[in-house]
């Protein structure tokens, strides 16, 4: 018996040692190279190194934060805000991130015309204070606890389990709805950040179409429609037009997206 336990522990340790370096070591080198380049003031090189890691499928708020820093230091305001926004989706309460994002926003030229309604921030405070992964994990955990309590109730017929399940049900339901809304928003109500210093928003796809207004780097827009090479974007209720897709970066980042932001 003791021998079998010992063998199991050894196998687990070997497996852990095999898994950890295999995940970290190939990416640690470019990450540290990026840090070294950043410290040396070679910000474009740091961006290149870290974007390579993102291209390998790593989605991490700290990595996105670093990319935001490097882009900002490289005088690329649009991509900097984009990476900060992406990081904020994953970890909205990171104080360093909030500080740097606020600083970057202070450098933008366009005044925000469509602010979040304060009442919504009060009513749905949890969605603004908790990160999306946290909300999703909490919702799923609450769901698991709810059904586990119901199973316990069915098996034991103790009313305490049922009452607890009812208590768990309300917040869990709210969080599930929130997680579902966030997923829907990521898929349908996509937001983007203007990347170049200035971009003309036109009435159509063609370069000859009328320029309606101009947006500058870092402006946050909502993507209404997407054609093959263009986005129809909305800056505020009365400012809608078309821009080229290259001029905006979607905040919701997926593994299959192109990590390089021009």
């Amino acid at each position: 018996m003791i021998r079998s336990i010992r063998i199991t522990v050894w196998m687990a340790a070997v497996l852990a040692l095999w898994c950890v370096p295999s995940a970290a070591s190939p990416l640690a080198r470019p990450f540290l190279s990026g840090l070294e380049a950043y410290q040396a003031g070679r910000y474009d090189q740091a961006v290149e190194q870290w974007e390579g890691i993102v291209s390998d499928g790593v989605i991490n708020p700290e990595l996105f934060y670093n990319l935001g820093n490097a882009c900002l230091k490289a005088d690329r305001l649009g991509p900097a805000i984009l990476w900060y926004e992406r990081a904020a989706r994953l970890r909205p309460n990171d104080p360093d991130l909030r500080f740097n994002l606020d600083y970057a926003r202070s450098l933008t030229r366009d005044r925000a015309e469509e602010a979040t309604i304060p009442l919504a921030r009060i009513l749905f405070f949890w969605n603004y204070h908790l990160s999306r992964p946290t909300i999703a994990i909490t919702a799923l955990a609450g769901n698991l606890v709810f059904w586990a309590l119901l199973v316990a109730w069915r098996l034991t017929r103790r009313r305490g389990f049922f009452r607890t399940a009812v208590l768990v049900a309300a917040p869990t339901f709210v969080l599930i709805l929130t997680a579902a809304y966030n997923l829907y928003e990521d898929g349908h109500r996509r937001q983007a950040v203007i990347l170049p210093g200035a971009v003309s928003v036109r009435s159509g796809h063609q370069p000859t179409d009328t320029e309606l207004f101009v947006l500058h780097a870092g402006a946050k827009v909502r993507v209404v429609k997407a054609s093959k090479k263009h986005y129809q974007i909305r800056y505020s209720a009365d400012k809608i037009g078309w821009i080229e897709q290259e001029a905006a970066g979607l905040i919701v980042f997926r593994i299959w997206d192109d990590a390089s932001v021009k």
Partner: protein
Amino acid sequence: MDRWRWLISLLWLLIAVAPAAAGETAREVWVEATLSDPTPYVGQQITYRFALFQSVRVTDATFQPPAFDGFSAEEIRDRASRRETIDGREYVVTEVYYVLIPLAPGTHTIGAATLQLGIVRPDRQRRRTPFDDFFDDPFILRGRVEPRVLETKPMAVTVRPLPPWDGPLPFSGLVGEFDMTAALENPGLEVGDSTTLTVTVQGSGNIMDATAPRILVPDAFKTYADAPDEQIELTVDGYQGKKSFRTALVPVQAGEFQLPGLQLTYFDVTQGAYRTLNAALPALTVAPGETAPAVPPAAGPMAARSEKSLVTFTGRDILPPKEGLTALTPHRPLTWPVLLLGLLLPAGVFGTVVLVQRARRMEGHPVARMRQRARKALKTARAQMATDPSAYLTALYRALTSAIFARIGRSGEALAWKEAETLLRDHGVDPELARQATGLLTRIESSRFSGARLSPEERERLLARTRQMVRRLTP
């Protein structure tokens, strides 16, 4: 001659005794009020004294002070009694003091103070008992009490205004008699060291209103004022004490510095004029320091007291990048399939538990048991059909009776055809179906017990009819 001398002696006796005898009752208790200064200046503290003189025992004394309109009044809580001999008679004198500060110039009247009391007259007719010494307690009154109301005379107070002040220094607002000293903790310093300048104002008057005299230190010093330290007490002469102001001086550059003297102007009530106090300060020698400028302690008497101001950015930059390898830990974003799977999987487990519970419950039910037995019996009949006719017919009988029992919702082993028809009809089964079932049961029983051999076709047909009937009875 002797007669004249006797008459003169008698006359002297009458002269000496008669006034004493007449005033004995009038002067055995009285009150008086006095002022330390009936012509004070505005802001000058004066003392109002109320005194009760008593040569007899009094009780139930109630004192009503005057209103003191036009004054700020504060009673000195320490009331004291003493003995005093007046005109050869011993009195107990009880005094009450008020410190008054005139608020405005002009003539003010301090009204009468009233004292209501009772004079204890001994009961001369009562004989003393041996217990009198034991009960000789002032709180235990024996005798009658004669009520009295005593009043002081109103007093007029002429409050003089302060003369106008046009001196070079600002008037400190102090009125009274004061003195000022200044001391420097350490005149030899290094840059960044801290030394304490202590300015003490002491005397009698409105010392509590004293503020720190202006300290004109060179720009080479930073100053941190401490909270003043007060040691003030209220006496029969008014407010007296001292107030100390401490300031931490921190030199920021080396050199020889002569600190200017400190000056304080107050109104001297004894001289009736303004007076300026001077306190000289020693020269300060500041040597270059090797360390960073000292920071005054955050707490304690030397703690820095600086003006609070809004913290503003003095430079703009972003915070540094994250250097931990946790930045390489992938975050798996939530997707719809993951969310739905996470939601439905536990629900599925719950549904499975419910189904298993139901199935188990059904297993114990007679209907389920009989239905199961009917199915098994049909299988047995099928298996024994060619080899063992007896077992074949027994199995058919078992299958049909089990189906009938399942239909009526109970369990059992044997059933006569007549009983079977009655039970089926009683449980609402179609009479035609009941009749067919009992007919088939009769057919099986007759073949089973008659011993007649059935052809294979007949066996097949009987099995088919039984299977069909079982299905009709147990849908």
